[in-house]
């Protein structure tokens, strides 16, 4: 019998996302798991990580137990180096100051395109979703890490609508559409860590999370998966990672 994991899906996504960040980087983080994972990285291996929020914040250190309900709330400014207008912080992406963009996702496809606008035909949608926020700008203008729940309906062959572009239709189509370098770098779920093929730009499995099999993963994915030649198994979250995370989010706002 497999021992039940000692962490929730949201917790392993947050911990594995935090591991992707490097000290000294400038990261543009969305609300929820990205904000939490970037804050966790600051407390673990990246004390010099600079976190930007779309509300207009440079260099935040969010307080444990005081997670903001959006990236436009005053709590986001705690111990920041600077506050500025929302358009101006987004323009830092366009100028090229940002190393990593980091956001959640509702629906993603084989080429890393994200949909947070419509379920069904956009002309007559089954569901009108909230929309892009800064997601389109972040995905258009820097290297992206996406942290999201792994479900078949969320991992689809082709998104209903491209809200935030990945590699569009693969190969060179991102560059042809006029977008700068960058695009999808990593996708982190509770089942696996993905990167993207350098040429075809297809999503590929880099590492399986502990206890997850290739069959498992394929069963939960809406398109045929490509596996890296050297697929590894990720180290489970350590006690230190989990303890630090739970101190940051004691009310389990984002890790339930």
């Amino acid at each position, binding site marked *: 019998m497999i021992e039940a994991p000692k962490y929730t899906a949201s917790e392993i996504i947050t911990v594995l996302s935090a591991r992707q960040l490097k000290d000294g980087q400038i990261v543009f983080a969305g609300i929820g798991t990205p904000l939490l994972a970037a804050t966790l990285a600051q407390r673990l291996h990246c004390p010099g990580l600079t976190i930007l929020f779309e509300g207009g914040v440079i260099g935040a250190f969010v307080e444990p137990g005081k997670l903001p309900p959006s990236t436009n709330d005053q709590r986001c400014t705690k111990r920041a180096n600077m506050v500025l207008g929302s358009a101006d912080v987004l323009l830092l992406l366009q100028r090229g100051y940002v190393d990593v963009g980091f956001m959640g996702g509702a629906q993603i496809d084989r080429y890393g395109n994200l949909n947070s*606008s419509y379920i069904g035909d956009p002309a007559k949608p089954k569901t009108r979703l909230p929309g892009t926020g800064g997601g389109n700008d972040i995905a258009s203008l820097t290297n992206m890490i996406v942290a999201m729940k792994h479900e078949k309906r969320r991992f689809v062959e082709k998104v209903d609508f491209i809200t935030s572009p990945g590699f569009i239709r693969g190969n060179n189509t991102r560059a042809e559409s006029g977008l700068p370098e960058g695009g999808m770098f990593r996708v982190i779920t509770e089942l696996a860590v993905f990167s993207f093929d350098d040429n075809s730009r297809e999503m590929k499995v880099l590492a399986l999370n502990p206890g997850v099999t290739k069959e498992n993963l394929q069963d939960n994915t809406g398109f045929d998966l490509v596996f890296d030649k050297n697929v590894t198994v990720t180290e489970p979250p350590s006690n230190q990672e989990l303890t630090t995370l739970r101190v940051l989010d004691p009310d389990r706002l984002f890790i339930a």
Partner: protein
Amino acid sequence: MMQTSANKERMNVEPGTVQSYEELRGRLARRDRSLREKVVTLEQAASFVSDGMSVGIGGSTMSRTPMALIWQLIRAGKKDLSCSRCIVSTDGDLLFGSGAANHIETSWFAQGILWGLSKVMRHNVESGACRYDEWSHMAMGMRYRAGGMGVPFLPIRSMLGSGVAKQRPEAKEFDCPFTGEKLLLVPALNPDVALIHVQRCDAYGNAQIDGLQFMDIDLAMAANRVILTTERIVSNDQIRRAPDQTKIPFFCVDAVVEVPYGSAPHECFGVYEPMMQHLEMYVAQVNGDPIAGMKKYLDDYVYGPKSWTEFLSMIGVGEIVAASRRGRSIFDD
């Protein structure tokens, strides 16, 4: 008098249409930009807004929302407003649910990330009753900035290749004459009127904003009229002691209303955080039934109270004190 001239100034053009530069300067030339006191009541301020106007809303998401003024516009029975804001939350629900607005341009529209999708937005947009035009967050900012700069558009490098751009034919792909690169030109946004809530301003409208500015400075410069609501009116002497803190100059401003807790139940930086109990009650009620639940909320909390202060008393002194304590804690080390 203001209302008559407001009616005359109404453009009522298709959203995304750029106003002619001559017209834009003409409208500004006709505004009284002198250093004069312009303090009015909430009711008087609402009368400056006419049905069908385009309305730019300051703040973002749940922060520095000009909620008291939106509340008053709904009470005054405004119709068919075309609103824009960088990010929309429960303010958009109230505008759609009451029929005050039938169109919103923004980058994101839900009640808040904690609550998932807004059933009110979904009901009104999916039924075709109201329109939600989506732009990227930066595009909204560059549209207000172009409006504030007096140019018809600005180029951006995002949105290209996305469905968001395909849905907005009013944004134009363009080959740069210097580099040959593909860029997206987003049209200037010059709302008929902007509603902005600030921590303090003087009677002339010199406004000081603490903390996050969002797009309010560009919005104030872009709009053809600006109504400020403020937590408190301070003396002009106090403004002049710290002019570096002044973010909106008086000559952009047409009316000033002192409304303590004017963003409730949203937050105002350094003064109060969001009033989450009230918001949770609201979300449960309107998402439970986006028609009857919204009607009941409007009857109980918007049409019912005699004044904004009475609305605040319905939120409750306990919650307001707690929100204020959290709000001020941002200045602690």
